């Protein structure tokens, strides 16, 4: 607690010292003085001091050190908000912008993690004032400020549901919108300079910083947000701001989306940059933000081709928001392409291989059902757009690589549909009806583990394969036309069915034994229970037949084993039916 005379002495000393002679101790003293005033609730007095005409020399040289304490005071929302705000405003108009900038950047760096959004919301308007006053290093400072602010904001969780967004508990939405507002004067200035063809290298630097801000924002928070054009939420509005800013700073969306990947410069190719552009593609093509000013001359196949890079990036993520956006972009890009249009040469492109593989992983591994369902729809849409040869190649690829009965059965079902389609007049093709079909059929009628195939695990796939076989045999006329094809087909069929019968017999034997053992064990347990109930003696031991230790209750185990046996019956009956048809066809002359 300093007495007034002592304080006045110090103040007088400051007043008498020219700026260049002021030492760090002086600055620290001044800062302490200010902080003390605030802690003691004397913000009014501090404001008076700062606004005092006679003290302007000190304020001008040393005032900036008070920014931190003043801002923190405002953030803590303790009494005297107005005085502090007025004090800050005065400082931003009086002190050197460069020094102020320095202290503000330090402030951002040292933000209290519990008060990130409050501090940023307090700071941003004043930051803007300071930045607008800078001369030659404005662009660099804008860049530093935006980077620092976004770094702090990335520590806040992005709201994902409508309720979360409306509540905006952590203030993230408010902050981003405040940032968007704060950069507007810089954009306007750039627009004016462009119009007058008056741009300098400093302007170019500013443009770059603003672009970086937009790209960072696309990735964080927008890629994680749930954006929906029917619900123009806070983050939707922020997204729109970004989309509008880009053309305002002369950044063409078509250049960004389509032509930077083709240029393949190292700067634009890293995964973060791809994620930003993926979000951009999503906002444009799926959410239709600023689509009306996007050129309507590109071919849908080209748009798909470019977007595949972004879809690939998004589908490699495990984040639900990224996945849903990737799937939506994929679906949207496919919808503009006419059916049966995509040529086989496209499948040679890396992204056209990678995306379906990633999609497959989503279908088999993603724990979220709605994502898997969405994924399956998109897979079918993709298949529908491939031309006949491409479908053939794709089916073969998936059968070879998926190692998953569910996916394989889906492909086999599609194969059957294609065979049916090809049999219609005018649709004949070698890929599903001629010699080429055999290479695909060979992969369908194939049991990779031979006699040890787990029939239950592969049930879906096997049933679909048998259905396909049955269909081909009934509608055999088309396939019989090409010489050699039918013979080879029958050979494949015979080998497959032979192997399948072996598998069924082995499996049936095993499961029957298991079921019998289970029943025996149940009988034994029941008998022992009755005996125990009758006698007072404790049962010493329960003999247990050899069984795999299972967590399932005996009733459930029983059900499982029974249904397994039923499955084998089903498969066998289909095989029998196939053989019946074969017999019938042999009787009919060609």
């Amino acid at each position, binding site marked *: 607690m300093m007495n007034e005379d002592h304080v006045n002495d110090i103040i007088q000393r400051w007043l008498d010292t020219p700026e260049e002679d002021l030492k760090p101790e002086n600055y620290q003293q001044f800062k302490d003085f200010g902080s003390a005033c605030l802690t003691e609730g004397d913000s009014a007095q501090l404001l008076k001091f700062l606004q005092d005409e006679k003290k302007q020399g000190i304020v001008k040289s040393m005032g900036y050190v008070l920014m931190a304490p003043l801002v923190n005071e405002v953030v803590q929302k303790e009494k005297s908000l107005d005085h502090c705000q007025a004090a800050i405003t005065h400082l931003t108009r009086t002190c050197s912008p460069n020094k102020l900038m320095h202290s503000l950047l330090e402030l951002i760096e040292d933000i209290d993690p519990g008060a990130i959004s409050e501090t940023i919301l307090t700071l941003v308007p004043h930051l803007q004032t300071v930045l607008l006053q800078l001369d030659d290093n404005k662009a660099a400072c804008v860049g530093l400020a935006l980077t620092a602010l976004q770094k702090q904001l990335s520590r806040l969780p992005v709201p994902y549901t409508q309720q979360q967004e409306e509540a905006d508990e952590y203030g993230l939405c408010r902050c981003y919108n405040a940032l968007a507002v704060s950069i507007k004067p810089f954009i306007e200035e750039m627009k004016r300079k462009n*119009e007058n*063809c008056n741009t300098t290298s400093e302007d170019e630097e500013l443009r770059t910083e603003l672009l970086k801000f937009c790209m960072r924002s696309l990735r964080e928070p927008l890629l994680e947000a749930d954006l929906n054009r029917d619900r123009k939420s806070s983050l939707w509005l922020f997204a729109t701001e970004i989309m509008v800013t880009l053309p305002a700073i002369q950044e063409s969306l*078509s250049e960004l989306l389509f032509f930077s990947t083709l240029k393949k410069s190292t700067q634009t190719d890293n995964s973060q940059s791809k994620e930003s552009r993926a979000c951009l593609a999503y906002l444009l093509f799926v959410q239709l933000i600023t*689509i009306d000013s996007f050129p309507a*001359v590109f*071919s*849908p196949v*080209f748009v798909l081709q470019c977007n595949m890079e972004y879809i690939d990036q998004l589908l490699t993520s495990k984040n639900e928001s990224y996945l849903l956006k990737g799937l939506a972009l994929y679906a949207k890009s496919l919808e503009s392409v006419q059916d049966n249009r995509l040529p086989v040469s496209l499948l040679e492109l890396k992204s056209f291989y990678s995306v379906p593989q990633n999609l497959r992983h989503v279908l088999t591994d993603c724990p979220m059902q709605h994502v898997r369902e969405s994924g399956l729809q998109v897979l079918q849409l993709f298949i529908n757009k491939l031309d006949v040869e491409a479908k053939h190649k794709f089916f073969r690829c998936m059968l070879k690589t998926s190692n998953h009965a569910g996916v394989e059965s889906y492909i086999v079902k599609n194969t059957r549909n294609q065979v049916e389609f090809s049999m219609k007049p005018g649709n004949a093709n070698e890929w599903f009806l001629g010699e080429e079909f055999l290479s695909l059929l060979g992969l369908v009628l194939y049991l990779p583990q031979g006699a040890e195939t787990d029939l239950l695990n592969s049930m879906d796939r096997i049933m679909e394969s048998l259905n396909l076989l049955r269909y081909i045999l009934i509608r055999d006329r088309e396939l019989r036309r090409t010489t050699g094809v039918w013979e080879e087909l029958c050979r494949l069929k015979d080998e497959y069915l032979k192997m399948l019968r072996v598998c069924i017999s082995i499996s049936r034997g095993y499961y029957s034994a298991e079921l019998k053992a289970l029943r025996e064990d149940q009988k034994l347990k029941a008998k022992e229970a009755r005996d125990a109930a009758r006698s007072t003696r404790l049962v010493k031991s329960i003999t247990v037949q050899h069984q795999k230790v299972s967590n399932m209750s005996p009733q459930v185990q029983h059900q499982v084993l029974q249904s397994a046996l039923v499955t084998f019956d089903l498969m066998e009956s289909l095989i029998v039916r196939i053989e019946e048809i074969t017999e019938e066809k042999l009787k009919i002359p060609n």
Partner: protein
Amino acid sequence: MYAQEDQIQTSSLTKMADEVTREWSDEQLKSDDFPKKDIITFIQDNAAHSFLNEHKLLGNIKNVAKTAKKEQLIIAYNQLFESKKFKGTEPIEDVTEQVKAVKIEVKSKEAPAEVVDEGPPKYTKSVLKKGDKTNFPKKGENVSCWYTGTLEDGTVFDTNVPKTERKKKQTKPLTFKVGLGRVIRGWDEALLTMSKGEIARLEIEPEWAYGRKGLPDSKIPPNAKLIFEVEVVAVD
């Protein structure tokens, strides 16, 4: 390029209708040994463009052979002599169409074609202002242009022309590599025929634009014919 064009024009104009004689009899044609391709070649060489179009005999011989039955070809052969719709019996506008068709066919032979020749070009071009006639873009080269796209009813669905002349100085025209399928086919085909400075009006059929699907998000309905006014600013 223009020299070639003139050559083709003159030759088809000077070919007289009664120079074409019937070489084969029906029995010869029907014979299993007589290849379809020979009939097709003959008809393509001698029939008028409209005749070929009518009988679906335009385009790559291999493809025509795949889709046309021998009986149909024999009928067409006979029809040709009956109707006398030989080359050189058509007015000049149709000849220009033939020239375009020939040019397109030549191009597709050069590049390994993914797209099968389907017949006459599905766009028309009227030159509003001539270009320098020397700087034509080649396939794969960059082309920059200003354009305005309208629907048949006059609705402007897209343009990159800024509202004021002053803004035009600070705006960049649309730039892309032509002939690679990056833009709608009508554009790819048309721009290859335009030289630097040329302004043309293109009317593109839906098959070479956005087809049955259209581009609803950009206000292009299904099966829309598109009209573009295009100015070629720069070639590579």
